[in-house]
């Protein structure tokens, strides 16, 4: 009694049902299949080819894999990558998970405020976060070192960000808000009465936290750790900025090095990329297995969900204090460092003397830079275009996956999620190889970047779309059909408006991550098609730290305003959830 027939292909009667519905659905399916599969194919193909030079065309070889796997260097690369990713994932999880528990399950004051604040770290791009920690903790110019050295009158290096520890610290801290959000969701989906019954059995707060809460959240914990591991092993900014100068290579930075060597070794890079792809796929695979199991553990009751929070007593001021400290370290400190640096002529640690020389020079330099306008325009165009296309396509795809009984819809679902396993750099490489081979003239334009962004963020859009699609009762659509509305009409006037809150939220998210995007763009940009994040990267390469800071401050401020504005608009024009 619960199947829909809206989807059953109508009997082939020409001119009646061959209408917008099938055109739209067909276009979306073809687009998703193309985006997800074609670059992957080219990447695999390329990894079996020798470098192409003017004198010699590419030949089939296994040499790339031999080179990638036979040297001792490779072992170190693998070990480094693993150490870095595991360390960063654990650090992020411990920090994020702890604050999620504090925020969801205890009576710490100002919780609503903390939850609202937790979204803010997302708007600081990874490259700016990394740069700000270099400005803080570099052995030569880092503020922490210079201040401590002055205070004690020594020249000892107190902290060195250019190290494995430094990389783990920065990456772990950067992904901790993500861990916070993941674990918050996990805690929220847990039936609080399970904890309450432990409380009634006489358990203490730590006993409940470790023996009930954590055990129940275990699948979610593992799943979150896996996501964080995959994100860390994919991250490019931290290893490139902190690891490369001191020779600590991980997969992502090795891929970048291989492409930028002369002659560029795309085959070797592809072989590395395939390895990285395998690791990421394994992680994502186990994560999805865990998530599907975790539904058995977590019970969302929905009815009367009012979790009783643990009374921490006086300790709750400590947890609130820790929260403020965390927020300071993750958001305020990086921003303030960038702000300080942007107001200087040359980068110097804060002092009364430096305070005399505050200047807005760097801002002028950035604004006068001819590529600034291009970069901003490109970033805007790409992020808005990408977000709009992603949300429209995923709304159709999620409709197909959730509403219809079309054969092969699970395949479509998986295809849409496939890009999740592509690390940004690998995706950039795959798309580069793909459109270098297929001569449709997108290589070297911003269109290739649009393709990369859409591919990369399709899974995120899908998550937002399908979550809200699941909340729309099937009968809302069926009643439109009974009222005489065609499929297109129903989709436009009933489905899309009802999806609106989810679509807007997803759109905002995709806009932000598109503007932050660096690791795919770095292999795809060319003069004239640079974006803001690339401009930051170039300023870093040129050593123009104060200009970089100025640009960073403007970018963060703009993103912040955008989020505020988007939330305001979303609240005003969004639909009240029925």
């Amino acid at each position, binding site marked *: *009694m*619960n*199947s*829909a*027939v*809206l989807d*059953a292909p*109508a*009997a082939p009667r020409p001119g009646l*049902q061959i209408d917008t519905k099938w055109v739209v659905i067909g276009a979306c399916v073809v687009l998703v299949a193309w985006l997800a599969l074609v670059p992957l194919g080219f990447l695999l193909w390329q990894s079996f080819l020798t470098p192409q030079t003017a004198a010699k065309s590419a030949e089939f070889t296994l040499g790339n894999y031999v080179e990638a796997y036979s040297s001792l260097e490779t072992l170190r690369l693998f070990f480094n990558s693993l150490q870095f990713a595991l360390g960063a994932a654990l650090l992020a999880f411990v920090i994020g998970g702890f604050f999620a528990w504090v925020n969801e399950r205890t009576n710490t004051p100002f919780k609503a405020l903390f939850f609202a604040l937790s979204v803010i770290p997302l708007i600081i791009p990874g490259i700016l976060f990394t740069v700000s920690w270099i400005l803080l903790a570099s052995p030569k110019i880092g503020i922490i070192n210079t201040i401590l050295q002055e205070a004690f009158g020594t020249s000892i290096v107190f902290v060195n960000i250019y190290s494995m520890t430094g990389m783990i610290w920065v990456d772990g801290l950067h992904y901790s808000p993500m861990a916070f959000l993941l674990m918050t969701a996990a805690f929220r989906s847990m039936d609080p009465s399970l904890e309450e019954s432990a409380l009634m059995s006489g358990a203490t707060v730590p006993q409940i936290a470790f023996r009930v809460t954590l055990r129940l959240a275990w699948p979610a914990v593992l799943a979150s750790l896996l996501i964080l591991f995959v994100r860390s092993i994919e991250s490019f900014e931290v290893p490139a900025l902190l690891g490369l100068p001191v020779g600590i290579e991980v997969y992502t930075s090795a891929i970048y090095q291989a492409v930028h060597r002369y002659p560029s070794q795309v085959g070797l890079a592809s072989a590395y990329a395939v390895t990285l792809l395998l690791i990421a796929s394994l992680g994502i695979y186990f994560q999805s297995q865990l998530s599907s199991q975790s539904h058995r553990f977590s019970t969302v009751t929905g009815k009367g969900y009012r979790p009783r929070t643990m009374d921490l007593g006086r300790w709750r001021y400590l947890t609130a204090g820790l929260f403020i400290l965390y927020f300071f370290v993750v958001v305020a400190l990086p921003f303030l460092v960038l702000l300080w640096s942007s107001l200087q002529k040359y980068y110097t640690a804060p002092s009364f003397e430096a305070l005399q020389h505050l200047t807005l020079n760097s801002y002028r330099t950035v604004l006068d830079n001819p590529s600034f306008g291009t970069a901003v325009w490109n970033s805007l165009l790409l992020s808005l275009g990408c977000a709009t296309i992603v949300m429209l396509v995923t709304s159709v795809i999620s409709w197909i996956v959730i509403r219809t*009984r079309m054969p092969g819809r699970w395949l479509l679902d998986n295809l849409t999620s496939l890009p999740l396993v592509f690390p940004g750099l690998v995706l950039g490489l795959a798309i580069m190889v793909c459109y270098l081979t297929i001569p449709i003239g997108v290589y070297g334009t911003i269109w290739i970047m649009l393709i990369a962004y859409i591919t990369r963020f399709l899974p995120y859009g899908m998550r937002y779309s399908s979550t809200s699609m699941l909340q729309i*009762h099937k*009968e*809302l659509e*069926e*009643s*439109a*059909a*009974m*009222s*005489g*509305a*065609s499929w297109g*009409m*129903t989709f436009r*006037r*009933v489905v899309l*408006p*009802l999806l*609106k809150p989810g679509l807007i939220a997803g759109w905002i998210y995709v806009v932000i991550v598109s503007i932050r995007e660096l690791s795919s763009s770095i292999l795809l940009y060319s003069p004239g098609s640079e974006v803001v994040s690339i401009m930051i990267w170039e300023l870093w390469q040129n050593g123009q730290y104060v200009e970089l800071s100025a640009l960073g401050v403007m970018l963060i401020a703009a993103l912040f305003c955008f989020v505020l504005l988007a939330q305001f608009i979303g609240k005003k024009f969004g*639909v*009240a*959830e*029925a």
Partner: protein
Amino acid sequence: MLNVTALCTEYASAGGQPVKAAQDVTFEVPAGKLFTLLGPSGCGKTTTLRSIAGLERPKTGEVRVAERVVFSSEQGIFVPPNQRNFGMVFQSYAIWPHMNVFQNVAFPLEVRKQRPSRKEIADKVMRVLGAVQLEELAERDATKLSGGQQQRLALARALVMEPQLLLLDEPLSNLDAKLRHRMRFELKRMQRDLNLTTIYVTHDQSEALALSHEIAVMNEGRIVQIGSPRDIYERPRDRFVADFVGTTNFLDATVISANSGNGRCQVSTRFGALDVQCDEPFRQNDTLVVSIRPEDIELSEQRPDRIDGENIVAGTVHAKAFLGEYLDFQVKVGENILLARAHPSLRTPVGEPIHMRMKAEKCVAIPGAH
């Protein structure tokens, strides 16, 4: 008016096996009548309704509305739901939360191929809203309506398109008991006033009895009996029907004599010989089941005189339950227990002897092995 012939609908279950949700469903509804599909959940009544609506695509069969074939597996016709012009009220009401009351009702008119003028739409919408007494609330957000108002709004939306056929899928099941009773009368009055051919799906037997011109009782995908409410209740032709509609006592019996043309026969039961109502042709020694409704068992402390066409059985009071309007007695006869419903004034204590008088026409013989 509506002809459903040999309709079969199946759908793939989670395991990929086709589930036969409706099998060989055939019925006819004359114009202006309210026809109810009644059955427990999973019996195929909603599938049948959705197949008529076109929301499910049946495997075989034919659906014809006033000589227009909307589905026929033989001729390969399947008119999509949005071209059938049937009004439908869904179980969840399916009120669009992003539109107000007026917009919800106007929607079916706005999506027409020949869209009426704005004024025409407004007139029609307000007239329908008036009929369901919602005209005051036209500008209100649809989500801010009470359950009963939402139900009337869903009805208004189905009526505004002047449908050929009105399909109601458990429209009262989401309301609380008091409101359900009131809406039952309102729905009935409106259906009778508008003279609208209506298919009504419910699992609530009292709703079906109260509203319908005709009822089809369904079980396991098939229609087991079609008849007027009184027929269904008083002359069930199937053990399932007798059991599902109302409360009843079953007695295993064997035919002693299948006499005469008055529809009576004599059967032997564990209580001795009984005169029962036989609508089917029975022969001697056939086994059957006798259904007796609790309210058709008349209790008395004195043994009444037996007149023709009545059965008298003696027993003892086994247990009783006071239910306000009436009193339920469990009467023990040998090893069997019968449920009888009596006026609360009867106060025979537990353990005392009691006599049961049952009219033969109320003891209905139903074919079936023991």
